[in-house]
């Protein structure tokens, strides 16, 4: 066979080891980026069919998402909840579970945080924020932890159960904000009472972006360390790679699955808390803004690698931030950005079938030729 690029003849061992190292990692980068580009190209055709210029569209998208300090701040604000929502997909995915109901944990996390804020109104600022965060994380953790427990102990499909539980969570939120937790003063939009101003999470100094961005980035880094560097992460990767092998090794698969799902849900619940404490000021129907679903796309684009989630969430945040500009300048409907996200997602799912097909990414095939 002749494949000049892959021929290792006359290469020093160190250089070929480095090349192998790069090749093994390049696949997980090149394929998603390629899929992203193909998805955007398909979307261009869609735009062209509408009689608009794709070039103008991507130009506006760039300017709306990243072209000015104002748009960058807008982008980063949107990226903050996406980081946490994507972790809610990526962590269970490392154990082989496809959880798509992070929206439910976000919504309940927000309501629990708002309820906590009402209960402890008047407490010192730091105590209030921490207790709100804990309440939100607990609610989200229980919600997604239950999905993991149903999966492991009762063999209920986690994709279906998490999706259905998201609907239950939204219904529960509507019931609570329109009933027991409603602020009688909120007439047009039923909401919980505004939280104590001391509990509001403010902007990062020098930016118009709230602290949730930092929290999300820290959560991503911590998740990466957990998976790549600790015994629990290693055990989870074994269980995700082959649950029978994990059982044969005597690893406690049930607690691992429930634990990782609960942690994933806690991150989503934290996203809900931040929506309440940094954006809305109370819990209301706006909590179900679809961050949980955008998080699915972010996690898949990042191949469930928590570090890769950071740039991908910022990219997706930028695309979402440009929606308003597209609407105003090109007279495109509000849903345009969602069409783009949907197209990218379909191409990403298709690209999953390409792994292992390319010789250049597979050093194990190079040596057979020698």
């Amino acid at each position, binding site marked *: *066979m002749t494949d000049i690029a892959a021929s290792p003849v006359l290469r020093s061992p160190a250089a070929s080891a480095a090349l*192998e*190292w790069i090749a*093994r990692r390049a696949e997980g980068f090149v394929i998603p980026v390629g899929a992203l580009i193909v998805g955007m190209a398909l979307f261009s055709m869609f735009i062209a069919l509408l009689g608009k210029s794709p070039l103008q569209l991507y130009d506006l998208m760039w300017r709306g998402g990243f072209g000015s300090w104002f748009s960058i701040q807008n982008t980063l604000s949107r990226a903050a909840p996406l980081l946490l929502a994507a972790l809610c997909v990526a962590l269970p995915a490392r154990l082989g579970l496809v959880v798509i109901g992070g929206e439910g944990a976000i919504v309940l996390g927000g309501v629990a945080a708002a309820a906590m804020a009402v209960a402890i109104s008047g407490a010192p600022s730091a105590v209030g924020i921490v207790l709100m965060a804990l309440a939100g994380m607990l609610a989200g953790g229980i919600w997604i932890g239950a999905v993991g427990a149903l999966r492991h102990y009762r063999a209920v499909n986690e994709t279906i159960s998490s999706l259905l539980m998201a609907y239950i969570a939204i219904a529960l939120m509507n019931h609570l904000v329109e009933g027991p937790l409603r602020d009688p003063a909120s007439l047009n939009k039923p909401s919980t009472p505004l939280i104590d101003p001391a509990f509001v999470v403010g902007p990062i100094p020098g930016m118009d972006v709230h602290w949730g961005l930092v929290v999300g980035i820290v959560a991503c880094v911590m998740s990466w360390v957990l998976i790549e*560097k*600790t*015994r*629990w*992460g*290693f*055990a989870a*990767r*074994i269980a*995700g*790679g*082959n649950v*029978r*092998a994990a*059982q*044969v*090794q*005597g*690893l*406690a698969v049930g607690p691992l699955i429930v634990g990782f799902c609960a942690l994933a849900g806690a991150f989503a619940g934290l996203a809900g808390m931040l929506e309440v404490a940094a954006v809305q000021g109370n819990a209301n129907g706006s909590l179900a803004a679809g961050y949980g679903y955008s998080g699915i796309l972010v996690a898949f684009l990042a191949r469930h690698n928590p570090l890769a989630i950071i740039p991908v969430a910022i990219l997706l945040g930028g695309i979402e931030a440009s929606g308003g500009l597209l609407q105003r300048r090109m007279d495109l409907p509000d849903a345009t950005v969602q069409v783009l996200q949907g197209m990218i997602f379909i191409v990403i799912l298709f690209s999953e079938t390409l792994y292992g097909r390319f010789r250049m990414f*597979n*050093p*194990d095939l*190079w*040596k057979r030729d020698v």
Partner: protein
Amino acid sequence: MIIPPPAPPSDKAVGVEATGMTMRFGGFTALDHVSVKVPAGSFHALLGENGAGKSTLVKCMMGFYHPTEGQIMVDGREVAIDSPKDASSLGLGMVYQHFTLVASLTGAENLVISRQDVPPIIDWAKERKGLAAFMERMPFKLPLDVPVGELAAGEKQKLEIVKQLYLGRHFLVLDEPTSVLTPGEAQEVLGLVRGMTRAGDLTVLMISHKFHEVTAFADDITVLRKGKFAGSGKVAELDHKAMAAMMIGDQPIAALDSRTGVPADARPILTVRALRAPDRSGLKKISVDGLDVKSGEIVGIAGISGNGQKEFLEVLAGQRARDAGEVMVKGAPYGASRAEARTLNVRFIPEEPLRNACAPKMTVAENMAFRTFDLSATGKPVSWVNMGAIRAYAARLVEQFKVKTASLSSPIAALSGGNVQRAVLARELTGDVDLLIVSNPCFGLDFSAVAEIRARIMKARNAGAAVLLMSEDLDELLELSDRILVMSDGALVYETPIATASVQTIGEHMAGHH
């Protein structure tokens, strides 16, 4: 003189000759100019290790693959076989290793629906009459009115062969036809098939790993090695050693350690008492009243697959809950948790290691660390995983156990079956081993890997490990075990020391005649 009327052509055996068969998949040559001649009415055996190209060759003959080069002649005429349908119309058929019958239908129903020309409305009275007349001419006697699911494995295999004959096929490829049969059933089925070839009704090309079957039933053999023709000859003129030499070429074969005696006072390591557990259907019970495995002995468990061995092993490995009874290791109750396995030095090697003992996409180094990743160099539990130490440890084991891998960072799925098993053995046999539980360790592996892996197990035994070996390969059990037990219908029904073990008696107990 009365000349008998000529039999209809479809009742005669068909001869097949394939010449210069070459099959390339991309840049990989699976079959390289291989020729095989199977004259009408002969019983031909096709031998070779896994990946030698046997199934590629027969798939070309059956029209599943289109060979890159080569011709096929049927009864001396060159033919084009573009699809399984073409093969069928020439009278060529194949019996697969695993059953293809519909379990809920009767034998008669299975036969009739397998025909190409089934009418939309089946006249069962007429079909039954036709079938009765057909069965008259068959040497096989089979109950055709019970659901196939209720037949024994040997009967199912006979029905598979009868089905091919019923469909008018007179050249049959049998792909390891006895792998699911007891020795008695295997003798019977192959004997009947051989009778039909002698009578000139049938030609057989049998893929087999079992030399004793080849010697007893086949006329000629063809051997493939790495996709190439490696030899052929008359069975009468070849002994097992010559056939093995053709199959493996000149690679060295690991020799078994000589067996040291089991001291009479060896302490029992594994003790199982009054164990009860549900089987996978939930309808039957696994019940093991008593089993002891002593230090320094290999206890083999024989049985036809599906008689509860797998479930028994899953109970021991902690993958299946038990209803009652106790499992003790060195006198301590054993529940297969990681901590217990670690303190009691219990190792478990399941069958098909890539499916059951590895995470295929994780690297070789990571897979080799599954047992020890959460321990420091001094054996203390740690929270942080040290990838450098894991790689160094794996590098050492790869060297010691001769695991062939392109790199420690290769996904373990990229390794060959034998090397995956070597990697798993390296992981599980390093350090002190008091109890080793192994299931079908050599299933699907090639000759040299099999010899080496058996040698490793024997070595562990000689070093004092108690070994519980479950295998569907009776030859393997006879080679390795100190005692053999037979499991049938979820219970241990027979026990014999190796000195008095007879294939005949073991086979009868496997079949449930006890």
